[in-house]
């Protein structure tokens, strides 16, 4: 289905990453947002608050991130596409409801503009320290999708895609920006509405009585939905539940529910995962990077090439699920991975795990607050090919 033209700001604009996320959300059909102000993410909801009324949407500022992150779930079960937006301290509070979204298979989008941590940390400066929290932050076993844009253009593209993926797989999707990507202003091209593909919510055509809210059709892992007011009696609970949604607290129900929810992501990983490869042919070292760090790494690679290094690039666009197959294949061909990130070692652990000793993994770590010096990345590349 194409985007509703009412919300699409077709044209070429200079936008910052935060505002570009807002436009991506509106283009995707998002018409509800709840939030609580926090730097450096507030611009996203400020723009939504200003833009929404004209397109029939609604932003509400709540008392805290606990409220905002569950209010969006309420809106989704009422039929809206919804987003909440935050940064580190708020992201910690939202973990509870990411878990609820996962267990109730609620299609919803969370945007986290990462800043330095832990705790209040560096409110106005960048980091990439929440990558593992995005994956594992809520208790219990679940899988979600996380995307990491590296430009305002990608903020638009990936926020739009986040909504589409959420509907496709009935999962929470997290868009992981960092302060620099959120606040940098660049050209953003927004296509005409009839060239924007939007995934509508898949509502059931089954009759009340025949329909089960957590039963996927033959050959599918993703159940259809209904919304309040459509005449269905449904029960949605954060407890382990059966296909009807009724609490079923036993080993069999738990096994079935958790495993299907995992399978939705694991079995569709090839369709979900996107990445960008450059100069891999003949490369002896590969820089694995994401978000703002991938932009800095470009410069690092250029410097290293000037000194003769054969280096290629693998940029993560989906962080979760992780491109396991691709990293395993590359590990058979290269001497080393170089993994720069604005944290003390998160995605590099994943790379190292998958490389499994077939090649070296050289993390280039940074506690955050600014971006890497490209020369440090260049040095690591030169060491990798030595």
């Amino acid at each position, binding site marked *: 289905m194409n985007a509703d033209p009412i919300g699409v*700001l077709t*044209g*070429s*604009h*200079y*936008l*910052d990453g935060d*505002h570009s996320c807002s436009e991506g959300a509106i283009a995707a*059909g998002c*018409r*509800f947002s*709840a939030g609580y102000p926090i730097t450096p993410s507030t*611009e996203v909801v400020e*723009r939504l608050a*200003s*833009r*929404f*009324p*004209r*397109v*029939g*949407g*609604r932003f*509400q500022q*709540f*008392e*805290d991130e*606990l*409220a*905002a992150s*569950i*209010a*969006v*779930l*309420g*809106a989704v*079960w*009422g*039929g*809206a596409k*919804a987003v909440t937006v935050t940064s580190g301290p708020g992201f910690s509070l939202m973990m*509870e*409801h990411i878990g*609820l979204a996962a267990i109730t298979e609620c299609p919803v989008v969370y945007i986290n503009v990462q800043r330095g941590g832990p705790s209040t940390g560096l409110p106005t400066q960048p980091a990439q320290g929440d990558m593992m929290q995005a994956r594992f932050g809520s208790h219990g076993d679940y899988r979600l999708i996380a995307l990491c844009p590296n430009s305002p253009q990608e903020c638009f593209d990936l926020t739009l895609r986040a909504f589409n993926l959420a509907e496709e797989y009935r999962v929470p999707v997290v868009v992981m920006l960092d302060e620099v990507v959120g606040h940098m202003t660049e*050209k953003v091209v927004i296509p005409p509405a009839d060239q924007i593909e939007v995934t509508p919510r898949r509502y059931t055509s089954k009759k009340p009585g025949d329909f089960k809210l957590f039963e996927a059709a033959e050959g599918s892992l993703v159940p259809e939905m209904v*919304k*309040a*007011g*459509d*005449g*269905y*009696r*449904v*029960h*949605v*609970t*954060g*407890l382990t539940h059966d296909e009807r949604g*009724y*609490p079923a607290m036993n080993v069999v129900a738990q096994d079935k529910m958790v495993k299907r929810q995992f399978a939705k992501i694991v079995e569709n990983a090839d369709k979900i995962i996107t990445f960008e490869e450059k100069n891999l042919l003949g490369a002896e070292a590969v820089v694995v990077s994401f978000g703002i760090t991938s932009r800095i790494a470009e410069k690092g690679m250029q410097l290293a090439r000037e000194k003769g290094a054969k280096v290629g690039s693998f940029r993560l666009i989906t962080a979760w699920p992780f491109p396991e197959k691709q990293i395993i294949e590359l590990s058979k061909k290269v001497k080393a991975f170089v993994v720069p990130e604005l944290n003390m070692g998160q995605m590099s652990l994943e790379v190292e795990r998958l490389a499994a000793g077939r090649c070296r993994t050289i993390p280039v770590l940074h506690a955050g607050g600014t971006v890497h010096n490209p020369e440090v990345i260049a040095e690591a590349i030169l060491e990798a090919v030595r």
Partner: protein
Amino acid sequence: MSTTNGTTAAAALPTYTKKDFESGVDPRWCPGCGDFSIINQVQKLLPSIGVARENIVFISGIGCSSRFPYYMNNYGMHTLHGRAPSFASGLKLSRPELQLWVVTGDGDALAIGGNHFIHTMRRNLDIKMLMFNNRIYGLTKGQVSPTSELGKKTKTTPYGSADYPFNPPALALGAGATFVARSVDLEGAHMGVVLKSAAEHRGSTFVEIYQNCPVFNDGAYTFLTEKAVKAEAQLRMEEGKPLLFGKDNRKGIRFNSQSAELEVVTLGEKGAVEKDVLVHNPRRDDPTIAFMLANLSNRPGFPTPIGIFRAVKLPTCDDLNWKVINSAKAKHGDVSLRKFLSSADTWTVE
């Protein structure tokens, strides 16, 4: 998206019976739990309120009380501990035409959910909250709650609680709720009347229901419900009627204009006559008298008020919002829209 501005065409409603609102799942509450009588009253009420069953949503948090939606034959949401008001707010803001009931407990609403509670009340969203107050944590088997009395011995206060409790209606009034009431599980007829008024109110609606937990806090309300003491202990507030109580309604509540306090008078004693007694008016814009009445609860020498403390009409949060949205939408198609879209930190690249 199917958001409308709150008015669905009044299609002919089917004739419902109480059974239509029963899910058929056997409640897992303990025998004798006050929750049974509450669900019974709610299921009795719903056929008569003129709302299509599919437009009624029950949303709960976590606790014995929060199992409620499971037993109702509606769209039901069993959310997380303390968070039901926020979930409900999101749903209400996006779908104003739905009738939302939040079912919660004293711990759920006032401890972990206290912040959400006050903010939901102040916003005057059209959400009806029923708080089952058993003055204990039931589901986790008997710990102190924010409504447990001072000195209360529970599993986590084995020497007696040193915390002063909340007075829930006073809290709701302070937070700006536009409808505040109290009833008692054992007073079925009274509860029915209160619930009907709650159903009719548009705006933030708070009903505290005193609920006995026979397992972990048995007899919490015998001071109010025992036949022998009932007449003296209950102050039944009825709109337009003097606040009389006691055997043969011999006592009343008077506003003492010297001390600016409420006091108990006995008719015929010390010159007190019925016309001195405060006439109940829950529709005063100023909540001060309602607050004074709420504060009579558990005060030595005073009866405990039950009934409606406050019921005032104010535009709801969703009324105000849809007004903004509709007027903004009406301007869509204006040439100025393009300009508006491109204003504020957007530059078009020519």
